[in-house]
């Protein structure tokens, strides 16, 4: 069965520090992979996507993610976080086409001043 796993429920980082949020996937073939961010009371905003090609993808708000087939991972990174980055982050996968997304449980990011 397809699955996406985010091992960290909560992550706390200091403002200005670097960030890495982990995501692992289990699919029969290479899935389409996404990172979304959700602020309280809001819907999901797409940060970046991986379909194929270059394994390092750039997204909005200074985020990037790297697809590593050997580790079945798609970790999200940011070199320097801002207080406004505090939110819930979801990794998601899809088999392609118009398939529904399979989401991880989310990682709650807390920014310390």
């Amino acid at each position, binding site marked *: 069965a397809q699955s996406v796993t985010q091992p960290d429920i909560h992550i706390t980082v200091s403002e200005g520090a670097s960030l890495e949020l982990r995501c692992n996937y289990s699919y029969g073939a290479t899935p389409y992979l996404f990172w979304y961010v959700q602020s309280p009371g*809001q819907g999901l905003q797409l940060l970046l996507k991986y379909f194929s090609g270059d394994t390092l993808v750039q997204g909005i708000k200074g985020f990037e993610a790297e697809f590593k087939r050997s580790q079945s991972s798609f970790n999200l990174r940011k070199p320097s976080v801002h207080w406004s980055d505090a939110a819930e982050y979801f990794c*998601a996968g899809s088999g392609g086409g*118009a398939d529904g997304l399979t989401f991880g449980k989310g990682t709650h990011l807390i920014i310390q001043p």
Partner: protein
Amino acid sequence: GAGVSQSPSNKVTEKGKDVELRCDPISGHTALYWYRQSLGQGLEFLIYFQGNSAPDKSGLPSDRFSAERTGGSVSTLTIQRTQQEDSAVYLCASSQLNQPQHFGDGTRLSIL
């Protein structure tokens, strides 16, 4: 409208009542999806519509849940005989084929 629009934003109803949730997708998007977000289960796929094809209902949790998409645009998710475990945020998303999904702000459903 630039984004996916959902209404109502909040809905409170009594157990046993029927509810209808509406989604207005981004113009030109052929695919439309419904998801449910709850504390215990996280984000779950419910159903999707692609063009004029039969919908993929594989994620619907019970036969009390149904959805329609009229004219390839607006969609309605209906929950009959609501139960307390139906309390959740219901999210709608739309996309073009093989493109990322864009989400609305959701409908927060509370069953008393």
